[in-house]
């Protein structure tokens, strides 16, 4: 029955594209998570009234984050072609999309991390200081655990955005479901292929949202 509704879908290709999309999404989500947390922590810690208060560093990181957050993703990929070529020697295939995916989403996530950290009660940080905690202790035992629900729900939103980005990256040759939908579906006017790719992307998004919500609820003891 499935074959009669989707006569032009090659399930082998579809599966391969799904794996590519999952590969691009998961690698970029993991990298974004760590990079975003580092940037978000720096933004938070160097802001006014915090441990590493430093206006200049804060402004520089903030400007960097804002610039990369504002560039439309499709343009960012094009702008990053020389960088990708230098890094990977190619601009086609699943790995080629990674630099643009990570650079495009880490600043976005960094802002969410910063917002999550700001929500921590200042008194709790002060209490840790009054106990004689080092900055690293404050970061790893207070800031990150206390903001973890916000960090997880933030990365969930970012991961869903990243699934969309991988599809866009696919259009210019990065592989995955977006690439398949564009080349096989749109350009050859096989709407069933486009539809199937869309359905699979939707399923991926739902699963990500479900996992994200589940972990957030599990962690939130407030």
């Amino acid at each position, binding site marked *: 029955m499935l074959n009669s509704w989707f006569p032009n879908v090659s399930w082998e290709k579809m599966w391969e594209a799904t794996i590519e999309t999952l590969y691009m999404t998961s690698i970029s989500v993991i990298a974004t998570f760590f990079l975003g947390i580092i940037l978000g922590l720096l933004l938070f810690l160097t802001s006014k009234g915090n441990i590493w208060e430093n206006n200049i560093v804060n402004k520089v990181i903030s400007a960097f984050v804002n610039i990369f957050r504002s560039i439309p993703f499709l343009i960012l990929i094009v702008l990053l072609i020389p960088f990708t070529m230098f890094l990977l020697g190619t601009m086609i295939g699943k790995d080629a999309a990674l630099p643009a995916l990570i650079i495009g989403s880490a600043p976005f996530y960094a802002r969410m991390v910063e917002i999550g950290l700001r929500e921590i009660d200042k008194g*709790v940080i002060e209490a840790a*200081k*009054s*106990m*004689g905690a080092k900055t690293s202790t404050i970061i790893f*035992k207070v800031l990150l*655990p*206390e903001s973890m629900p916000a960090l997880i729900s933030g990365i969930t939103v970012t991961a869903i955005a990243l699934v969309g980005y991988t599809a866009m990256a696919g259009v210019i040759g990065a592989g995955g479901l977006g690439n398949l939908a564009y080349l096989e579906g749109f350009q050859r006017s096989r709407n069933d292929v486009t539809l199937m790719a869309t359905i699979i992307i939707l399923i991926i998004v739902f699963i990500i949202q479900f996992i994200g919500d589940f972990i957030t609820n599990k962690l939130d003891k407030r």
Partner: protein
Amino acid sequence: MISIKNVQKIFSSKHGQVKAVDEVNLEINEGEIFGVIGYSGAGKSTLIRMLNGLEIPSSGTVVVANNEVSHIKGKSLRKARQEISMIFQHFNLLWSRTVRQNIAFPLEIADVPKGERLKRVDELIKLVGLEGREDAYPSQLSGGQKQRVGIARALANNPKVLLCDEATSALDPETTNSILELLVDINERLGLTIVLITHEMHVIRKICHRVAVMENGKVVEMGPVMEVFKNPKAQITKRFVHQVTESEETKETIQQILESYPQGQIVQLSFVGDAVEQPLMTNLIRDFNITVNILHGNISHTQTGSYGTLFIHLDGDESEITRAIDFIHSKQVGVEVISNA
């Protein structure tokens, strides 16, 4: 134990400079419960935060348990802070950790090995009376229980000094009393020096040995709690003392008394410590030719003794009343004539 010398703290804001703490000098003894009272904005919060280096004085020195907190930095400050712990008005517990894990946090900071940590946490849970709640999260606790966790956490590393920053201001009266009793118990059992700031005279009366009254960044009055109660000098101190000795109810009662006794004199007597125990009324009635009528009285307990007020009505010959009042004076009892009828 704690010595604060010529300490000033100036905050600069857009609207100019604000002197939060102005030339404060204090000596706090080992094992003492020392209270600082003042209204909000008096500088008491800034003062207590200078005792563990959360604020650095603009000038002057602060020495706590042989650490010059006002000058040390980095590792030595962190080490000193393990000996000077603090509890807070809003408890400041980590919501992501259970009671047990919250209490273990300062021990983790001090690099206490895990086995020892667990043992110490169990001791502390018993000390503050939180048995059975070890695995609860702060959101599942009442305010009083949260503050008990705060106290257990503060005691974890066997500090020499405990700083209480409005520790009972967010609690209801009943819970406040139980937390204050716990603090007294800890003070007596562990010999811990406690410095607390508050805006409630009730807290000072109940547990402090000595008190400093702050207004506009200055200490305007200081002394043993009983002395201050007996003989408040500054206007603001009188207001604080009235908080506990004269309730609204008392004021109304006096008003009524004044109206219903048009003759004679109404006198307010204040008894402190031993004076409470003399047979003053008997002597008054025996030795003077006047009628004595007891109208209203109450007794407040402080950490170092009792403080009582008594309103009496004296009727009779005017010269005899004057002699009676002089007699009361000679017995070391405070006398205040409320109004001539």
